[in-house]
């Protein structure tokens, strides 16, 4: 999922300055899991905005706002309400905001689309409702087969491919002593699997052209450009 955190109310109000009628669009996908933009959070923010003198004229929460197939069927029927609004505030990831903006353009509406959240990465839920970890950064060149299913590109604070830096202390990362050194985790895992020899291989520099942004995925061809 895409992890999100709530922006402070002061920042939201700043974004909505001069926009009194607000349409709220949440996301019952990732943002719901993060407790930042599901149906409940949209309702709560609606109350808070009303308390701040805003008029919330629409509350909708598509199942996956980042996906036009899910967002369009929810937003299309409420185009009139969107048109009436001074601004749309999206409680979703950056993708959800941009898909919403895209759909308003498709509907022929020129209306500011704002975000109420900060996107903080591709997150994997470890303890539902409590803890999610960043474990993959979609580099386009997965090396998990070589590293015991633990990604050093993401989980090593320096993204090192050839082994640990010298900074680990008692198995913890020099950059954050509450976190395990990714390379020690990899070493222990490969030792348990009897595959330590694999770690001796020179991995070589990463091909960052595969992660050059913005990428486009052609789903049918399985092609990325």
């Amino acid at each position, binding site marked *: 999922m895409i992890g999100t955190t709530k922006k402070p109310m002061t920042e939201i109000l700043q974004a909505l300055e001069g926009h009194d009628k607000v349409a709220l669009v949440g996301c019952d996908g990732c943002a719901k899991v993060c407790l930042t933009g599901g149906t409940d959070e949209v309702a709560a923010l609606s109350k808070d905005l009303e308390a701040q003198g805003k008029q919330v004229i629409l509350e909708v929460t598509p199942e996956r706002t980042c996906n036009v197939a899910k967002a369009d069927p929810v937003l299309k029927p409420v185009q009139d309400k969107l048109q009436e609004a001074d601004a749309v505030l999206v409680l979703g990831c950056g993708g959800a905001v941009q898909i919403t903006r895209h759909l308003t353009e498709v509907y022929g509406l020129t209306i500011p689309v704002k975000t109420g959240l900060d996107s903080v990465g591709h997150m994997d839920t470890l303890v539902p409702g409590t803890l999610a970890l960043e474990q993959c950064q979609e580099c386009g060149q997965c090396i998990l087969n070589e590293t015991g299913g633990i990604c050093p590109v993401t989980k090593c*604070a*320096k*993204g*090192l*491919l*050839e*082994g*640990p*830096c*010298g*900074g*680990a*202390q*008692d*198995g913890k990362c*020099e*950059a954050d002593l509450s976190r395990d050194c990714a*390379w*020690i985790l990899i*070493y222990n895992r490969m030792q348990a699997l009897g595959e*330590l020899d694999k*770690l*001796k291989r*020179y991995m*070589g*520099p*990463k091909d*960052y052209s595969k992660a050059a942004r913005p990428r486009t995925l052609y789903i049918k061809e399985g092609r990325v450009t």
Partner: protein
Amino acid sequence: MKLTELFRQKKSVITSEVGPVKGCVRLNGGPPPEFLQEALNIKDYVDAVNITDNQSAVMRLGPLAGSVLLKQYGMDPIFQMTCRDRNRLALQSDLLSACSLGIDNVLCLTGDHIKFGDHKAAKQVFDIDSVQLLHIARGLNEGHDMSGNQLTKATNLALGAAATPSFKPLDLHLLKMEKKVKAGAEFFQTQPVYDPRHYEEFARKTEGFGVPVMFGLVVIKSPQMGRFINDNVAGIDVPESLIQEMASVPKEQYKAKATEICIRLLKDIAPMCQGIHFMPFGWSDIIPTVLAEIKPYFPK
């Protein structure tokens, strides 16, 4: 001169480290900056002087300028190069520049994490890492860049690497050291350890690599410094007993005590390594005394 030449002559190589100033250096007849003065203090006692690269992620004068300055004063610099602040184009370009400016030695490092420094919001680069930098630098020595393009003239740099004898698990660190050797490392400079038995284990396990290892020694100048290192510097563990030993003397005797500790430690460790790399943090003036005492203990 390339350090590899000295190792070939079976010399016990002595190096020391200085950290460039945070500021521009234009001498114009004025006094030399602190780091240059520190290097000049030991010019006749060391074979080469390391110039750090934005050490601890604190922005300073660059190591290339610092290295050139040392050359101008008749010293051999070891140009330290980290992967934190430059991508593969900039690193290769700086290696070409270093060699063109007469630098013979480079120490290829990953670099401290940006969080330790004074620009914590900066984007870390780490496009490549220390093993890959060694591999790439060897390629430049062979006359081609990392994309395989021919150079008009190859570099001729002795390639050094870092090692951390206190790393746990040591076998994982040794695995990385082996990769560095295969990638092109021609000598190692270690982080310090303050227990000779600990170093002995490390020396035994690395002697088969066939690459000279220089023991690195950070001079502990006060009990406070020992504690600061333990709390803030990755990869160095200063034992409490050493901190207490420093604390057992009045402040004005710290330098004498630090000198005594260095001599004691190096008498045990010098026979097990191919050279000593001092990190004196401003106290380079103790190096001549230390060297005079430990010279008989170098391997014959």
